[in-house]
């Protein structure tokens, strides 16, 4: 055992001899915790939260399905936009006017 280990052992041995502190709950602590716990565990709000989560999940699935079902239409619309947008190049027009 090196000197650091030895002095550490002496320190923890002394620390173990320190008098135990009061471990009982302070006055009113259990009442406060129980009240908070039951206000958090309100069954009405937990059902609402669970239903909201389910609704959000269903909404996400529907959104993805809608995009998938209309994918070709969306893709077509995007490519049309690109084709019509290309001639509207204001910088190009300014450069052409200059030349």
């Amino acid at each position: 055992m090196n000197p650091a280990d030895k002095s550490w052992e002496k320190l923890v041995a002394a620390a173990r001899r320190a008098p135990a502190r009061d471990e009982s709950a302070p006055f009113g602590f259990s009442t406060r915790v129980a009240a908070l716990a039951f206000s958090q565990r309100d069954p009405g709000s937990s059902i609402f939260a669970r239903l909201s989560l389910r609704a959000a999940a269903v909404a996400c699935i529907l959104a993805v399905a809608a995009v998938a079902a209309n994918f070709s239409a969306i893709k077509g619309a995007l490519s049309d936009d690109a084709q019509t947008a290309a001639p509207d190049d204001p910088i190009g027009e300014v450069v052409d006017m200059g030349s």
Partner: protein
Amino acid sequence: MPDDEPFDLAGCLDRVRQRDQQAARELVEHLHPLVIRIARSHLPRRVSEEDLAQEIFLKMFTRLDQYQGAVPFTHWVSRIAVTTCIDHLRAQKRRPELRWADLSETEAQVLDSAITSENDVSPDDALEARELVQKLLDQLKPEDRLVIQYLDLEQKTIAEISALTGWNPTLVKVRAFRARRKLQRFYRDLTESERS
């Protein structure tokens, strides 16, 4: 509830599940010594032990429906307490380096006597020794600190630590080995900072 009557934990849990507030209060009173011991030994800076204990109890009540009885209830609560403390300690991010100048006069004397004297630290200095040990442990990573706390201060076995934390025994041994090495380095740095 009279002190001489054994606590009916299973019955109390059933009543808590039926939203009996009196049973919830009894459960908190019964488990408070266990929870406060863990909170005190892994107390982050700037968090009061009472706030930490309250957070642990609230988590316990929130997750009560998940308790299947696979491990003793006290072990299950210990794991919640340990995880909560570790999360708080991790959130601190920075662990201050302990220098000799940071120690109180009595703590410096106790440490000096532990290093230089062949004798044990005087029982009168037990409180200072405990403070000093906590300051040294504060420099370790939360998981390392927890293992050393359980092994050296509370003298728990590897199996007991494994049950309380949910870590497998090999992981506990590896963490203990690494923690001791780091602790030796901190200890050496601290004693060197005294000389400089």
